[in-house]
């Protein structure tokens, strides 16, 4: 079924639209090779999460894909029936969500929340699912897995919940993981460990990762490729080293400049210049005009 030579993920001219026709994603294209980490950067509201949601088939009700293609391991998701699409996504993909508090069901024990997808979708036996889960919990340095599996989410700290979610995401060794700002809700010391865990597990399992973040510092640490987004549009797409050494777009340069450095106290904080933002908004407007003409033809 899956083409071995295919890219893990290929998004081609994706447009995601509100019921009133307003576009949240504008002709977004990007691809992800097996085992690659691609960072999606941009300010809040740029559409980073929306890309992940479109790929994973969890767009909020009313928001839909109006144009474009998503290929998961070479399979055109749009061409599938909803049930097959769900199964395909479940078999290949996982999510590490932003908020570890709401990402686990508060009234269910941790154990079944992790093992359910393994038995349901991957057809594993209960024992195999449990063994794999224990193995992964151990890998994310959770010392008493059995106690944790029998706990409810509110009995654990935020950092611990996030490690559990990482273990859950990697447990079936998925081909694709969407990590949506997995460290944003955590404090700085925990952030580092979480990043390191994702990096390690990603290398071990050879999983491709779409890593959503607004932090250029994190981008530098974790990714090989970067997609810079503004207003639902791709502003720049380049290998990570090039983004930092030789950024093409003024907005990318501004984002890098706006990143607090270790000696932030001596260097002034430089926000993105308003003139540049205005320029980007004009481009979006022109783009939308072209898009509506195209639609009306």
């Amino acid at each position, binding site marked *: 079924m899956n083409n071995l030579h295919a890219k893990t993920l290929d998004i081609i001219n994706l447009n995601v639209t509100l019921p009133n026709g307003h576009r949240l994603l504008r002709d977004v294209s990007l691809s992800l090779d097996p085992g690659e980490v691609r960072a999606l950067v941009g300010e809040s509201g740029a559409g980073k999460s929306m890309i992940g*949601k479109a790929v*994973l*088939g*969890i767009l909020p*009700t*009313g928001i839909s894909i109006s144009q474009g293609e998503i290929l998961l391991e070479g399979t055109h998701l749009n061409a599938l029936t909803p049930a097959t699409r*769900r*199964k395909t*996504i*479940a*078999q290949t*993909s*996982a*999510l590490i*969500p*932003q*908020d570890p508090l*709401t*990402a*686990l*069901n*508060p*009234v*269910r024990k941790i154990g079944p*929340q992790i093992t*359910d*997808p393994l038995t*349901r*979708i991957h057809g594993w036996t209960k024992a195999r699912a449990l063994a794999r889960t224990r193995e992964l919990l151990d890998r994310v340095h*959770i*010392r*008493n897995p059995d106690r944790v599996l029998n*706990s*409810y989410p*509110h*009995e*654990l*700290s935020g950092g*611990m919940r996030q490690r559990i979610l990482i273990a859950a995401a990697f447990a079936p060794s998925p081909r694709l993981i969407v990590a949506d700002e997995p460290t944003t809700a955590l404090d700085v010391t925990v952030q580092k460990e979480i990043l390191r865990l994702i990096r390690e597990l990603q290398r071990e399992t050879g999983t491709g990762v779409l890593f959503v973040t607004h932090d250029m510092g994190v981008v530098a640490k974790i990714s090989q490729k970067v997609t810079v987004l503004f207003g639902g549009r791709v502003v720049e797409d380049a290998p990570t080293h090039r983004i930092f050494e030789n950024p093409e777009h003024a907005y990318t340069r501004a984002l890098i400049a706006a990143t607090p450095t270790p000696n932030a106290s001596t260097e002034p904080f430089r926000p993105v210049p308003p003139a540049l933002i205005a320029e980007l908004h004009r481009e979006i407007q022109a783009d939308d005009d072209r898009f509506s003409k195209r639609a009306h033809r």
Partner: protein
Amino acid sequence: MVDATYSPRPMRFKIRNLRLWLPLLWIVTLIIAAVFAPIFAPHDPLAQDLMLERLPPFFIDGSEPGHLLGTDSLGRDVLSRMIYGARIALFVSVIAAFSTGIFGSTLGLIAGYYGGWWDRVISRLVDIWMAFPPVLFAVLLVAVIGTGLTSVIFAIALIDWTRFARVIRAETMVQAQMDYVDSARIGGARRMATLLSEILPNVLPSIIALLALEMGIAVIVEAILSFVNLSISSDDPTWGSMISEGRGAIHFAWWVLLFPLIALFLTVLSFSTLGEGLKKQFDPVLK
């Protein structure tokens, strides 16, 4: 590793305070009295004795030792009638609350989770339904489909399902936004399975609270319908019919009115307090 503030496990029944225990005590008493009515009731609730009419309760001169809470205008024992009345009140409240709750919650869950067309139809239906004045609705309904306990239960469910539908829809919408719902879906769970095994457990505390409240409401509605003679035949001992009969004799036998009224009041209060308390008990995160 684990939070220092290790909170108790959810769903465990914890002795919190009297606000929970007193209502529970009253309701359990009521249930026992209702179930074992033939044992506890000192007299046949229908037995008339015109020699013993309007006997006062035990703490007033002229009372009879066998009639603790006195007798009514036909010489029937007030306490016995109240105990048998509890049977009817509880029966109606349990059946009515559960039918109302199941119907209303199901629609609320569907509207809140599936959204779109489902939500538009269900929400519109709720709006239209709520435009009717409920008591008038109930009286009309029973008048049309006839009197009797089944009609009373039917009327309650038909009027009050909107309460469940509205609250559960809103709560379901909140839960549907949570990341764990997305995670379940990415994990391959079907929509119906997600609704039943992920969302429903989270709105269950509210359903339970509403059920308790609804039981209280059902007791009142049954009493009102008895009061206006639209429930079961007026010979049968219901609190409502006792209040109705007692009203006529309030100047010479106030106890016939007062005791069932107190029972009614305590029951309704207990159900609603219990509902609130249960909601907190069942809520693992204690929002």
